[in-house]
């Protein structure tokens, strides 16, 4: 049987020299103590940002017209959520990778009907109010075409929407119950009641904020705040934190793709970037099996810089 030839990229030569004792527990303990002390010191000296949570109450009080316009977009089906597709609804095909309609395959897992979930059902949860009860009855008894006509009429007039004296002002003529819906939903939001009505957690602890977050994301208020803090996708936002706190610098490659064509204009950027990063991660995982790439450490000889004492001694002997 012939002996296999030595392959420098794959095989390790047998060590025939001496061995030195090395206390890795001691080194680990020292590293742990140093890092813990450094963390404590930095936490004391630097104040971390403490941004308050943005709620629908915050939003509707700060930008009532934006809230009311977004509420209307939920009602007329033009909001991002209404047109998103899976996992929320069948509004569009959703994110896809080439011919693979990934989101559609996964299906509607968190069903969201923006008309009922964001507008009608929260209004139904309000204590009895004559005008609102009448409007809800009128809506429930109307045909689809009647509803569409009312919403279209209000949408047409809403281009000149204002907010004055604590009320939403729109000069609509034949909008049926829609003005009452938008006005009451805005008042509900400003009081904080809509935040509670949209929380759908069945358990004791409230942890599911899907509905209020979707509603918030459909408006321009939240994205405006994110833009101001350099947190949006086209601002390398994945790498950033609020304030002047350092962010997640290690996500540079992930967010880099979002800045260049074709990803910065693609509606499927999330899936495309996910696929690229998946491929690159697999490439990193199998580096030891890729000829050429696996030779880089051996050819750059950085190891000789780290263990220079050893190689100097070896050359002397």
């Amino acid at each position, binding site marked *: 049987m012939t002996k296999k030839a030595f392959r420098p990229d794959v095989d390790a030569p047998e060590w025939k*020299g*001496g*061995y*030195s004792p090395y206390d890795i527990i001691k080194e680990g303990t020292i590293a742990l103590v140093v890092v813990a002390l450094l963390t404590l010191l930095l936490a*004391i*000296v*630097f*104040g*971390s*940002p*403490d*941004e308050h949570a943005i709620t629908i109450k915050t939003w509707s009080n700060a930008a009532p017209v934006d809230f009311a316009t977004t509420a209307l977009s939920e009602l007329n089906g033009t909001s991002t959520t209404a047109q998103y597709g899976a996992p929320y609804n069948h509004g569009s095909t959703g994110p896809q990778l080439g011919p693979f309609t990934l989101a559609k395959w996964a299906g509607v897992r968190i069903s969201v009907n923006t008309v009922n979930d964001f507008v009608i059902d929260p209004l139904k949860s309000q204590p009895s109010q004559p005008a609102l009860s009448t409007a809800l009855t009128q809506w429930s008894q109307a045909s689809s075409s009647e509803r569409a006509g009312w919403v279209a009429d209000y949408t047409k007039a809403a281009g000149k929407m204002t907010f004055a004296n604590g009320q939403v002002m729109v000069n609509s003529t034949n909008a049926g119950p829609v003005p009452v819906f938008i006005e009451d939903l805005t008042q509900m939001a400003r009081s904080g009641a809509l935040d509670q009505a949209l929380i759908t957690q069945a358990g004791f602890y409230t942890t599911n904020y899907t509905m209020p977050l979707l509603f918030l994301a459909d408006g321009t208020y939240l994205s405006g705040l994110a833009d*101001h*803090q*350099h947190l949006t996708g086209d*601002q*390398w936002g994945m*790498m*950033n*934190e*609020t*304030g*002047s*706190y*350092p*962010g997640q*610098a290690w996500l540079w490659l992930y967010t880099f793709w979002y*800045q*260049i064509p074709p990803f910065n204009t693609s509606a499927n950027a999330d899936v495309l970037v996910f696929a690229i990063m998946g491929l690159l991660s697999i490439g990193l995982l199998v580096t030891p099996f890729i000829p050429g790439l696996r030779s880089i450490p051996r050819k750059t000889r*950085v190891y000789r*810089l*780290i263990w220079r*004492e*050893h190689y100097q*001694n070896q050359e002397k*002997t």
Partner: protein
Amino acid sequence: MSWYGSFAALLPLDNLGHYLHWHFIDISIANVVVIALMVITFIAALLLPFPGRQRRKENP
């Protein structure tokens, strides 16, 4: 304000950050500082001698 709160007020980081722009690159000064410190640490790890090397002698 608690005693540790007054420490934190020395260098508050809740003010809006400063950013460097160059073509499509947009990076915060805070991230630049962290990246620079990581690079310095890496170079130091390569170049600084191992501690206790005087005491440790390789066996022949």
